[in-house]
């Protein structure tokens, strides 16, 4: 763990805002599993070769994102798959789109595993009475299913999705809504996320959060000044928090 601004961690936080996807579990592994399942099904249903499916999917996602902008719906896999099928030369195929979406999420969720010590860290927060809020993009239905699957609903106090807030991060509304849910907070706010721009800069600008950047592999000192600490393992964040308890 690299503490870029040690003075930012002189006190215990009063609340913790957490990004979800790729911060608490590995998005890439799950997405890969989901895409593999969808591609296999597309070949069976539509005789669409995996390489063509991948290309159509990439184009479809770009198109949907461009058209919808930074909204929750722009992450909707059902839209992606609908457009994937259409771009592959078929008319809209609602049944196939739904099947692809279900296959994707089933395989995606089947591969989901919390990062080591992530649950222990959230338990630390719960025991210390520090509210933990998930602030995440995407639609609430699928995010809630993921939370329940990982058992996070038992340790996280609140959840804010971009569908609820009205815009994707770094839209300040998401962070403001997170604090508003429990009546605001006095003291330091930690924001933990894997995107400097969307999570950390967004939270700093919206609510003045102290920022912890979650990375894969070896942490390196970031170029951005918006990052107060970089870490790869939640064990390090637990240790940081424990040392604050000692100081307190």
């Amino acid at each position, binding site marked *: 763990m690299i503490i870029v601004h040690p003075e930012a961690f002189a006190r215990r936080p009063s609340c913790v805002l957490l990004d979800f996807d790729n911060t608490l579990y590995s998005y890439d592994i799950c997405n890969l599993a989901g895409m593999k399942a969808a591609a296999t099904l597309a070949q069976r249903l539509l005789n669409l070769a995996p390489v063509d499916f991948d290309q159509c999917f990439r184009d479809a996602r770009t198109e949907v994102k461009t058209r919808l902008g930074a909204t929750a719906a722009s992450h909707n896999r059902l839209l992606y798959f609908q457009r994937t099928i259409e771009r592959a030369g078929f008319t809209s195929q609602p049944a196939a789109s739904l099947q692809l979406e*279900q*296959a994707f999420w*089933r395989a995606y*969720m*089947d591969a989901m595993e919390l990062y080591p010590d992530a649950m222990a860290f959230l338990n630390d927060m719960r025991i210390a009475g520090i509210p933990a809020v998930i602030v995440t993009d995407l639609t609430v239905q699928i995010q809630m*299913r993921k*939370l*329940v*699957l990982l*058992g996070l609903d038992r340790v996280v106090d609140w959840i804010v999705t971009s569908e609820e807030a009205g815009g994707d991060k770094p839209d300040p509304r998401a962070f403001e809504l997170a604090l508003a849910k429990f009546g605001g907070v006095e003291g330091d706010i930690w924001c933990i996320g894997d995107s400097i721009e969307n999570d950390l800069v967004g939270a700093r600008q919206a609510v003045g959060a102290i920022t912890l950047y979650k990375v894969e592999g070896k942490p390196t000192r970031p170029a951005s000044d918006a990052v107060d600490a970089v870490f790869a393992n939640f064990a390090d964040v637990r240790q940081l928090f424990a040392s604050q308890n000692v100081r307190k």
Partner: protein
Amino acid sequence: MIGQFRLDKIALVTGLVPRLVLAILVIPQTHTQWFLPFLTAAPSHGFDPWTGFLSNGGQSAAFPYGFLFLAAFEPATWIGALLGGSYGAHIGLALAVLFWEFVLLAAIVGIGGNQRGAAAARVYWLSPLPIYVGYWHGQLDVFPAALLVLGFFALQHSKWKRSGALLGGAVAAKLSMAIALPFVGLYLLGRNRLHPYALRVSLFALSAISVFLLPFALSPGFRTMVLGTPETQKIFSATLQITPELTAYVLPLVLLALFYWAWRVRRLDFEMTWTFSALAVLALFLLTTASPGWVMWLMPFIALHVARGGFMHRIVIWVFTIAYMGLNLLQSTGAVLAFGPDLTVPFVEFVPGMRSRAVPIIETILLAAGIALAVQMSFSGIVLWPFNTASRKPFAIGVAGDSGAGKDTLVDALQDMFGSAATSRLSGDDYHLWDRQNPMWRAVTHLHPKANDLETFSRHVLTLADGHDVYARQYDHGSGRAGRETHIPAREIVLASGLHALWSPQLIARYDVSVFMDMDEDLRRFVKLWRDVTVRGYPPQKVVDSIARRSADRRRFILPQARNAGVVFRLEPRHPSTIDDPQRPLNSALLRLVVTLDQGMSFDEPARLLIALCGIYVVETPLEDGRTEVLIDGELTSESVAAVARRLVPGMMDFLAVEPKWHPDMTGIMQLVILYELDNVRRKRASAA
């Protein structure tokens, strides 16, 4: 797929530095005297390096290994020799050892899984034993150990052909590795569900042995150096003098005892097979004049054992390690320091009397630690192992309910899940007292207990549940007559279904899971009519009359059995239109399920997983009598059911078919519910042990 290394940086460096330092600074006597002369000369001897080496005056003990060893160590040694002469060849050989250590580490991590694998990797990597063996004493035994563990890893993941080839390769590389094969054989043959794969593993193992061993047996040099090595006689080195005329070989005796134990246990899962193999290798190590390198065969077993255990495991391993290191530093050959003194002569040579006093003391300590290790392994990996405690007796599942309520559908689904090779199935229909044409049926219905031989049914179920075969008649629904007695072998899961499966108090007490199949009455009439007319070929009016005639007995004898059930499944149509056309087959996706669970039985975890993974509707309601009612509605695929099962009951996976068939929709939910209840029974049996 082999698991990722999960060594943290400090552990990696801590283990790597002494290896590299020793590789650079130390040239073991085994390298200079044996391996390097052979390996550097091998390329010039063509296809038969053994004969060529001997004909040029080489020592027969220089390389007592076959083709696979040659392939594993020759390339790096040859490249090293090209770049740096004899010192380069030594470095090349040492780096090849390091490479095979990484392979072995990966296999250990793969077998242990995330947490245990990571801990085992740390134990292995930081233990002084592999460092001493590989880089001070200079042995190459890491290679057959790696092949053996890779073979086990493939076995664990049902990669049958690969497992056979790797295990056979391990034996071809080092004949001693064959010591594990009998236990792999028992693993595959002891459980019916694995029988189909036994032949595949055997064929590939034999092929690997044939390809990598037999052709070379034609070489005189190979026969002298590899097959004629005095090490093969070590199995007979320990003897037990029972009387002056009666002598027994200790190691074969112990191995036979182990084999007998494994055979009596009957059902081995992977962990137990691994532990029996560990005990056999440990016996080989302790009860022979073991070469220092043989401890490498033990290392994977030790590492995974310590990774599972607590303080006492670590104490025993430390004593074992210190004794082994002390013993071998004293009496085994050492190495030449690349830029310093010659330390090849065993230290014991310098201290008179040490060989007669100190060495036996250390050997005794090593033997004691080894026996303690064997006891620990036996308890944690066999005697108290959850699979063993859970599978000593079959799981018995009783399914009662009225005709057409879905008993057979459920039992079929359970058989699909566990595999027909693992299930003994008894149907109450086979115990009707009279054939269909018998006039007695005018007086009583099939639903009356007196119309059935419930005593024999109970005896048969209890006998199967006790692990013994039975002979039972089978009713032919086509002819309406009882057939001849057929042999029903006792298997891991006993499935007893029938109108009165929950009638006998003895049976109710014995069942691990007791299920009552209820059904919405309109739905039941629809299903019964459809099945009896379409499948069994009865006239429709006869079926309708039969339903009406049976209704009193149904209320009197069948429905009360629901009180004896731990789980009641009630299927309902989501909408009446689902069953309004008797000509149309039932669409199971249009049904919903109400599960009533006995007091104290929880459904929280399955409910959460079903909601999260499958996105279906699950609502739990506590009833006034203490039971819990769960309403489940929604469509789900068999893949979703499989995904829930993997997360919900990982401990039950060893009891399922190698490729379990999961059902979609509500039948899949029933599979999950019963599996979940059996998992609770499994835990209970384990804690009771």
